[in-house]
């Protein structure tokens, strides 16, 4: 039996949710835009899914747009900038996911300039840093809700409020929050004033890949044009099965509230791994039950073995983890850890443990025993 501790890359799929979504795909086979009876059935299923997502997230249904996943949800508000007559600057935090940082480079090709918001050595983006980085021509600010490598929860509420205050009377920059690692996992209030958009992905919530959500607090000019689906903001025939599955996932997460259980498990992870000679946490100041971090993600490092080697050695023992962001695991550099000023040797030896609702104490014990012998043996 394998031990899966790479939930932040992709959560273990929920079999019931996937099977129910197949039923939804079959009963809602018709195009939701079609006016005949079966089309109406599909449209009804789709709006039902949207309402369910809205209830789980505590927002209005009209603010939710189904997309193909986190990356697209992150891109759409950025692409909308291209329609502005005047180019300016965008400010993104140094620890954003490549879906934002790489797309920022695309915007640079179109005449926009990127400003990087620095982070503290613990991996937090402070409201002061955001305001200090911004310029008068800053049209877009992105700060993620939970960092995918360290689990650091960012002060989104404070940043949103300070952005509003600073720009009182003037046009406020669009504030986007990558909530992919936060939604359904940690307390997340999308309806706070000053937050303009947020991204969510189903496969981080035990749903299928290829479906996500973009929360848009108010309408912005769409970049992609087509058949007018998703209020005209994201044209293309809707992924009904995916939307249905995502709504189930969000509903389950909201109903179950697994955060306390996760906190207990993560406490165990941190305690048992820290007790191994040579292994330490990133950042080191993180405590066993640190409320500043997501209880689902922790980044560790060790004195002797490159993270990549450790991942392979654990994989031989059927224990599955990643070094950091699964999306960039083929690259060797660690920009998030670099932004936190982690020494290069510790960056190279870093690895991530991410847990989920099915993780057990037993699995954590298997992991820590394996790490104990690997770190001393390799």
């Amino acid at each position, binding site marked *: 039996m394998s031990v899966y501790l790479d939930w932040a890359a992709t959560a273990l799929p929920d079999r019931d949710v996937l099977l129910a979504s197949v039923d939804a795909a079959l009963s809602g086979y018709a195009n939701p835009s079609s006016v005949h009876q079966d089309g109406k059935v599909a449209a009804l299923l789709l709006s039902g899914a949207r309402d369910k997502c809205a209830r789980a997230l505590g927002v209005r249904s009209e603010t939710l747009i189904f997309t193909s996943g986190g990356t697209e949800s992150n891109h759409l508000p950025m692409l909308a900038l291209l329609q502005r007559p005047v180019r300016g600057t965008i400010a993104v935090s140094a620890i954003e996911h490549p879906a934002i940082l790489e797309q920022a480079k695309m915007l640079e090709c179109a005449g926009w300039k990127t400003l990087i918001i620095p982070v503290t050595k613990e991996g937090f983006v402070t409201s002061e840093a955001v305001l200090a980085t911004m310029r008068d021509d800053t049209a877009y600010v992105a700060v993620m809700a939970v960092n995918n490598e360290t689990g650091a929860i960012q002060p989104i509420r404070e940043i949103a409020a300070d952005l509003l205050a600073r720009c009182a009377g003037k046009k406020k920059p669009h504030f986007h929050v990558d909530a992919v690692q936060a939604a359904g996992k940690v307390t997340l209030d999308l309806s706070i004033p000053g937050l303009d958009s947020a991204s969510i992905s189903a496969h981080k919530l035990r749903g299928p890949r290829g479906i996500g959500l973009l929360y848009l607090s108010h309408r912005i000019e769409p970049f992609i044009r087509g058949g007018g689906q998703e209020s005209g903001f994201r044209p293309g025939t809707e992924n009904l099965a995916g939307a249905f599955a995502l709504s189930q996932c969000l509903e389950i997460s909201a109903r179950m509230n697994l955060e306390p259980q996760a906190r207990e498990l993560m406490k165990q992870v941190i305690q048992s791994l820290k007790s191994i000679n040579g292994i330490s946490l990133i950042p080191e100041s993180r405590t066993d039950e640190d409320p500043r971090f997501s209880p689902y993600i922790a980044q560790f490092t060790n004195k002797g073995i490159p993270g*990549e*080697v450790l991942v392979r050695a654990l994989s031989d023992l059927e224990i599955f983890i990643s070094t950091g962001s699964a999306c960039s695991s083929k690259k060797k550099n660690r920009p998030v850890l670099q932004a936190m000023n982690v020494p290069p040797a510790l960056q190279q030896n870093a690895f991530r443990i991410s847990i989920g609702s099915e993780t057990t104490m037993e699995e954590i014990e298997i992991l820590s025993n394996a790490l104990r012998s690997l770190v001393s043996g390799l």
Partner: protein
Amino acid sequence: MDTAIYLVKIGELTLKGGNLKEFEQRLVQNVQLLLEGYHARVQLRAGRMTVEGPVESAESIEYALDHMIGITGWARATVVSKDTAEMQQAVLTEAIKARDSGKKTFKVEARRSDKSFPLNSYEIARLMGEIVYDQGILKVDVHHPDILITAEVRERCYIYGPETTGHRGLPCGTGGKALLLLSGGIDSPVAGYRMIRRGMKIDCLYFHSHPYTSPEAQQKVEDLAKTLAVYGIGTHINIVSFTAVQQRIRDSSPPDYATLLLRICMMKVANMMCKSAGSQAIITGESLGQVASQTIENMTVTNSWAEYPVLRPLVGLDKEEIIITAKKIGTYDISILPYEDCCVLFSPKHPVLKADPELTKEIYEKMNIDTLLDESFAAREHKRFGWKDARQK
């Protein structure tokens, strides 16, 4: 059934004396092997090879000739009877093809090995050129023509346009058998190719250190072996795990000697492999001074541990020269994939540059590593790649 006919030049082979037949036979055999299943007929007569096969096999025949060692060039020819009108017609067709692909000037060359043919080479060339010129298809340029059209009068008459350059060298299998130390880098596949071109049949030996190195690194080396398999008419790759060996070196020797000791251990295993497979030499991709382990002093030390001649075909080449060949033979793009085949953990910051042979021996013996090497060798993995593996890769 339409037939595609290729005329192949064999170059260097013609310099051979008494054993010419043996070389020719091997070349024919190699071409036949690469074309197994394609219904091709291979013949070698009077210094010229012809390959004939159904047009459906044309692509495979061209692939085989493109990768064949021991030929200097080849061209797809039109075969006509020894009738000047028919010959002119074929030349005209070649000229029109050339004009349509943007060529402006031409020259006709003729060869006549059938001396009973009434016209001599000069007269044939003139007659063939005349019709292209008269019809105003291309202009004549005898010094720097855009296209050279050749008419060869042999047992039949062959007309052909531009030639594709071959790999030259001697047919694989005429120069003995050697073991190539293959890594994922740029150099070693080129070294292997160069020795295949001198007629050698090669097997490969690769060392991995999982989990320190990734499965992708090994896949890369296997892909390189597959690429070499086409030129070498198949190859065997032997994969030896060196994790325990590297750990032993790290734990029981001075760090600055680690790289050199690793090379020595590789040589020792290469000795075992040569003995087991009947190889007569060891090939490495070393180039003098390229890295610390490739100084003359260090090469002398590693050399002293080899029980077989160590061939270093790249020893006097610089990186740029090696890269040119790597690109030509299709290994460069595989070699530059970002999967390293040795872990930084085992590479010393300041490796010894001028190792002392006696001291090295002393350190080596202290490690007590021979049993470990025997075990690693015994646990090796073996794979065979045919030439088709590369085409399907």
